[in-house]
């Protein structure tokens, strides 16, 4: 029971932005931020029993998983190789599993995983109730709205993570899961096109250029979206520091997990509409590979980010000087994804995400009922390399606008 609780907690904290501290309770783990904490190690060791050889082969470099005891193999997923059984289990995960997370894993013969997912679901719902209830009780007070909204988003993120984890673990092919990049590329260049349908603005076609340059633990990421049919462009730059995770040089990381702190600036000009929005933001982002919480989730990852931003809107109205408007911004992002192929070689990753930000092109989601305005936007982001150097990116977002597009990726750095 205690192990279950620890496993559930490990999965829970994977979405918490202060995860590196929260997930590594021991002094040893604190000194080795990439190493899974005791609870995590236990979960991995337990679940490694179904496929020790495969896990050991997957882990590059020094890894806690290598030390997993060679327990007696017990392949509780054996019947999962039967496509009809798997289809049934996936249907259970999708349908009843929405109400009772872990139903797919329970049907697949993994009751412990099912319990952990249920615990995460309950925790997520609890946080949503706390956040939503707190907002209602305080009338969305100016003093508490930010933390309570963040709590609610985190709760919804945990709910989504446990649901998607169940579907992933139940649906994933037994013998083909992706592997993360354990060294980050030195640089990644991106050039592509986005179609942005926003009925509020004239622009539709965008040229997108981006560049990530990594030196040691630092990454500089300038990006530009340039409208081809309007006087509109958004330029952003982020400087990130990686506390833990894959780096461009040095020994490979244990997995794809990382923890970054990012300082960003943005300049968004809407010249044909007579205003410009300048922004500054501070954001911390965590990714955790789900293998840390059980081999059933091998190849999947979850992400969380939290931060704040400050926007300044300058109005350009001929002959009328107008004071700028200042507004703050809650930044929160939650994602669930999976690697495919070998992310460091030929392969990549796909993720679905929720982004709470209300600036930029996608902004917040419009809903037809009572609750429009508060939610951010959703997206799907797929990056895949067909050689060690070249790749493609597919990007789709839905918020106040619909965005879809592709980019060509070019990377350099260590390859497998």
């Amino acid at each position, binding site marked *: 029971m205690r192990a279950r609780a620890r496993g559930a907690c490990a999965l829970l904290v994977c979405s918490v932005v202060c995860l590196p501290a929260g997930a590594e309770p021991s002094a040893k783990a604190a000194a080795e931020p990439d190493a899974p904490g005791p609870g995590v190690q236990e979960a991995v060791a337990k679940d490694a029993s179904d496929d020790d050889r495969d896990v050991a082969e997957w882990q590059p470099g020094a890894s806690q998983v290598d030390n997993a005891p060679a327990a007696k193999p017990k392949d509780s997923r054996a019947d999962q190789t039967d496509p009809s059984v798997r289809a049934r289990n996936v249907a259970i995960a999708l349908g009843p599993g929405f109400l009772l997370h872990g139903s797919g894993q329970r049907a697949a013969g993994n009751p412990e995983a099912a319990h952990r997912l249920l615990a995460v679901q309950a925790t997520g719902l609890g946080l949503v109730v706390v956040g939503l209830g707190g907002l209602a009780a305080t009338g969305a007070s100016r003093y508490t*709205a930010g933390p309570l909204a963040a709590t609610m988003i985190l709760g919804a993120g945990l709910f989504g993570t446990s649901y998607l984890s169940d579907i992933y673990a139940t649906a994933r092919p037994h013998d083909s899961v992706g592997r993360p990049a354990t060294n980050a590329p030195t640089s990644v260049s991106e050039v592509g096109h986005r179609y942005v349908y926003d009925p509020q603005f004239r622009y539709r076609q965008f040229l997108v250029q981006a560049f990530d340059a990594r030196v040691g633990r630092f990454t500089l990421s300038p990006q530009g979206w340039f409208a081809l049919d309007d006087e509109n462009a958004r330029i952003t730059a982020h400087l990130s520091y990686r506390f833990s995770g894959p780096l461009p040089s040095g020994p490979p990381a244990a997995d794809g997990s990382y923890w970054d702190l990012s300082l960003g600036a943005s300049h*968004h000009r809407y010249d044909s509409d007579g205003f410009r929005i300048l922004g500054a933001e501070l954001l911390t982002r965590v990714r955790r590979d789900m293998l840390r919480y059980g081999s059933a989730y091998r190849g999947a990852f979850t992400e969380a980010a939290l931060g704040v931003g400050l926007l300044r809107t300058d*109005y350009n109205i001929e002959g009328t000087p107008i*004071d700028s408007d200042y507004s703050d911004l809650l930044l929160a992002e939650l994602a669930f994804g999976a690697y495919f192929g070998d992310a460091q070689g030929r392969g990549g990753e796909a993720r679905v995400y929720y982004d709470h930000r209300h600036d930029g092109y996608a902004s917040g989601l419009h*809903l*037809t009922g009572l609750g429009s305005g508060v939610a951010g936007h959703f997206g*799907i982001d797929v990056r895949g390399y067909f050689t060690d150097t070249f790749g493609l990116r597919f990007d789709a977002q839905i918020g*106040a606008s619909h965005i879809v597009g592709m980019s060509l990726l070019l990377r350099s750095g260590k390859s497998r």
Partner: protein
Amino acid sequence: MTRWLSLICALVLAGCVRPAEERAERDLEIGEATIGTTSVRVSGGLAAIRRGTPGEIELWQSAPAIDIHFQRPKDAPSQWTVRIKNTTPDLLARASGAGKSLSLTQSAGSVRTQATLSVNLPVGESTLSLAPADAADSGSFRFAVLSDVQEAIDDVQDIYRKMNAEPGLRFVLGAGDLTQQGTVSQLTRFEEELRVLELPYYTTLGNHELGAGPPPFQDLYGRANFSFEFKAVRFSMLDSASATIDPLVYGWLDDWLADGRDQTHIVAMHIPPLDPIGVRNGAFASRAEAAKLLSRLAKGRVDLTLYGHIHSYYDFDNAGIPAHISGGGGAIPERFDGIGRHFLVVEADGAVGVKGVRVVRVD
């Protein structure tokens, strides 16, 4: 992957880039009806035609001054009874048709904001003009602002009694969230409570009127987006209940801004473009659209913006325009702000501008 795509597709279906489009299109139908063979049209859609039978019509007025145009064919009845709700107590009605003034009889209703008119319409076009006697005069006047009553409907009489006691108010402007869900029964209850208020209540809708789809608000209370003039001051009411303004409405707004450019111009809507507490974002879904709207309002030299949605009181500037958020109708109040139930009293002058905004506490 296919499951993820299914999830995204579901979200695409749930989300919509023009959630207020249907309401904007519905606005175009408000104030127009064919009753028997007689066509009736209210200029600017400034009244909802609630019901009608040949010879009788009932309206809900959305503005102090309206013109009702009748086109009567030969076979239609000539004697018409016009029952008007939500009108000014000092209503002055005039009728004209066939190139001359028409005689009419005017009787007050059981409620101060109701009136009944009887008029004999000639064949062809005739117009019934309803307005307070001083509607076209310039000069200072005062009105109240009240929004976000919602579940506090049982106690709204306290607010109305306090408004009745305020000297010199001409009408109440509403920035939405009259009800909790916007159902017909809730909207009808709101109207019943209004019988105590001795002033007309001109209002747009809020997000809490969108709980019953399609929202019946417009059938009962008129257009969600409309503009009117009173004593040389222009008022523009916008439907921001879905945290956006529909692109169709931006076209209308441009005309209203042009009309009000040299006037005192007051714009009201439910959800504010910007929330002074940005991390809460009780505001437009898109900061870019917020800036787009505010840029237009500033360019149109709007003098005052009034909002609801946030259950407190905030006084700030947006795009240099004075802004007041007042959600003091009693819905779950924002805690720790020391505000509570309240309404605003605004003093405006067509020549001078907005002379003052005062908070009147109810509790």
